[in-house]
């Protein structure tokens, strides 16, 4: 689960990190009040959407002119933001953040993720802040300094000293950076993050001299498996940022991800679902979605899955690939027959069934005699048939 930048700033502030003053508005009416609350001066104005590419799209602006700020904020609320990450329809802006534009002496990167190979969290810092950490990692991996966190001991003071030392920070600056990194680690460990990032953490400049360490832009991703124990995190969830079909699938315990192709996929198991997409591509087709119906799928769940797949207008054919284990082939066959009756198949559906109760399922489908349905002998046959049909 992702949260907005303003929510990330609120979390950091609560955890004791020095964060510059900021205001969040949900309509252009609040602009004047917000500018006044910050105290005027040069401001940075940022639309609050999860998608990247805000700067290029004109949804991050820097200005010291109140009229200009107001004009831009009105535009941000009125026109959906279109960027390389949003698709042509863009996303509607619900909130805008205003903050003082700080004078920057130096920029740093601070991040925390799970090191999967070591099985523990790792804090990463770099003097090369303000750019994507992946870019730094590709260009100059030595510029990223890491401290692995013991699973049972948590972050130790010596680790903070090492990180500050690696960033070349001493005295008050080291104390301030310790607060920032400490707040990040506290949020990560207490709220079950999968990623926490402050980029940049800055050393501000006042009257031409280095002044203080502050956290500027922050990003948190939360472990979906742990949100059940964090109602405060769940409360930050913004459904408007999610794909409606993916949300609908989630409500029915289906794991669905929309893709760009034209062959819908209905599969049991995440690995097999990915492999099904791959084999479609291998035979010249293009998958329209990832869909794992799960092991304990019911007839109703599977019918819903068909509805979701077929609601995508790009879909010109469907491949059903079931290896019945816990999920039973006859349940899927029953769902196919019901879906055909309820919604009708206007596109060809290729069905490959194997495993538990497969004979029963095949007999059911044969008796139902659905004209849109084509049975496949095996996985390769299924992929070839569906690719030929679209």
């Amino acid at each position: 689960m992702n949260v907005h930048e303003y929510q990330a700033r609120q979390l950091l502030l609560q955890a004791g990190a020095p964060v510059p003053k900021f205001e969040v508005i949900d309509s252009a009416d609040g602009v004047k009040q917000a500018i006044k609350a910050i105290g005027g001066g040069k401001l940075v104005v940022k639309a609050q959407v999860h998608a990247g590419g805000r700067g290029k799209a004109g949804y991050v602006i820097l200005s010291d002119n109140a009229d200009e700020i107001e004009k831009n904020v009105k535009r941000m609320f009125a026109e959906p933001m279109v960027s390389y990450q949003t698709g042509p329809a863009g996303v509607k802006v619900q909130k805008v953040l205003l903050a003082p534009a700080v004078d920057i002496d130096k920029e740093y990167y601070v991040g925390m993720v799970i090191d999967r190979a070591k099985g523990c969290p790792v804090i990463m810092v770099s003097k090369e802040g303000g750019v994507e950490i992946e870019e730094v990692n590709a260009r100059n991996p030595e510029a990223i300094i890491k401290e692995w966190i013991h699973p049972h001991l948590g972050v130790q003071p010596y680790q903070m000293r090492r990180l500050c030392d690696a960033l070349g920070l001493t005295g008050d600056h080291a104390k301030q950076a310790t607060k920032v990194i400490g707040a990040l680690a506290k949020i990560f460990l207490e709220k079950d993050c999968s990623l926490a990032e402050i980029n940049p953490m800055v050393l501000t400049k006042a009257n031409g001299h280095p002044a203080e360490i502050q956290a500027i832009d922050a990003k948190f991703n939360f472990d979906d498996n742990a949100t059940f124990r964090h109602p405060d995190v769940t409360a930050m969830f913004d459904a408007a940022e999610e794909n409606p079909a993916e949300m609908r699938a989630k409500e029915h315990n289906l794991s669905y991800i929309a893709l760009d192709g034209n062959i819908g996929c209905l599969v049991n198991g995440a690995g097999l679902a990915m492999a099904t997409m791959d084999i479609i591509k291998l035979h010249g087709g293009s998958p329209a979605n990832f869909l794992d119906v799960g092991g304990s799928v019911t007839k109703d769940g599977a019918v819903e899955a068909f509805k979701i797949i077929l609601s995508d207008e790009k879909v010109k054919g469907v491949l059903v690939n079931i290896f019945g284990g816990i999920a039973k082939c006859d349940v899927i066959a029953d769902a196919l027959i019901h879906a055909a009756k309820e919604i009708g198949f206007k596109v060809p559906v290729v069905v490959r069934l194997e495993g538990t109760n497969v004979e029963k399922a095949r007999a059911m489908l044969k008796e139902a005699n659905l004209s849109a349905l084509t049975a496949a002998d095996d996985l390769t046959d299924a992929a070839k048939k569906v690719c030929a049909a679209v």
Partner: protein
Amino acid sequence: MSILVDKNTRVITHGLTGKAGAFHSAQCLEYGTKVVGGVVPGKGGQKSEHGLPVFDTVAAAINETGANCSLIFVPPPFAADSAMEAAAAGIKVIVLITEGVPTLDMVKATKFIKDCGAKLIGPNCPGVITPGEAKIGIMPGYIHKPVDGKGKAVGIISRSGTLTYEAVWQCTQRNISQTTCVGIGGDPVKGLNYIELLTMFEADPATDAIIMIGEIGGTDEENAAAFIKANVKKPVISFIAGRTAPPGKRMGHAGAIISGGQGTADSKIAALNAAGIHVAESPADIGAATARALGLA
């Protein structure tokens, strides 16, 4: 021969009286697995629907039944604790089926379980099966072919459930037996990983070749490839799922995500190819690739 579990393994089911625990324990019993009891806090002293004794604690279950393996179906908020209880009580093989366990719970639990000297399989996995001897998990038993001393046999390690069944079925159809199949699970932080299991299969005289099924996310397959090149003499066959998966999206499994340019299928396939591993292009060709690697086709 087999690794991890065999016909003498004595299993207790954590969550035996729950829906999933009861159903799959019945399936395991039917396959011939020695399920000897269950652990359900608050229900100690009762009998399960299978007529098995239920205990409040793992320690009590071990005392009464001589159990040495735990099969866990406990809901996500309590699953890591349940696995740690098993390890603390002296269970040596712990199979954690539960999907949806918080990652930071597994960070704490995997370290603790390792320190106890136990082996954890999972979470978010189908479990482990030694065909013909013990099925400790949720996989369909009948697709497997037990070692019969006649043909060749493979060991299977996989991050995916149904994709493993696919590989098993393709092998069985080609008369290739399976020594042991281990689903290591689709989560980012887990118990046994490729390298530990490759080591066990390499040492197992009944295993002629090893199938390793991976997917996008993390760098486990890359690390395994380097290990295989240096340490594994038996043929290894692999398939990596997710070549067509978009970056930044979690593909069903919590661990199946390409992030920060890491964890792509192409990177894994390149590492495996460089280590001389047979990588099947298509998920339908795992059996055929295995037969070729074993000199059967």
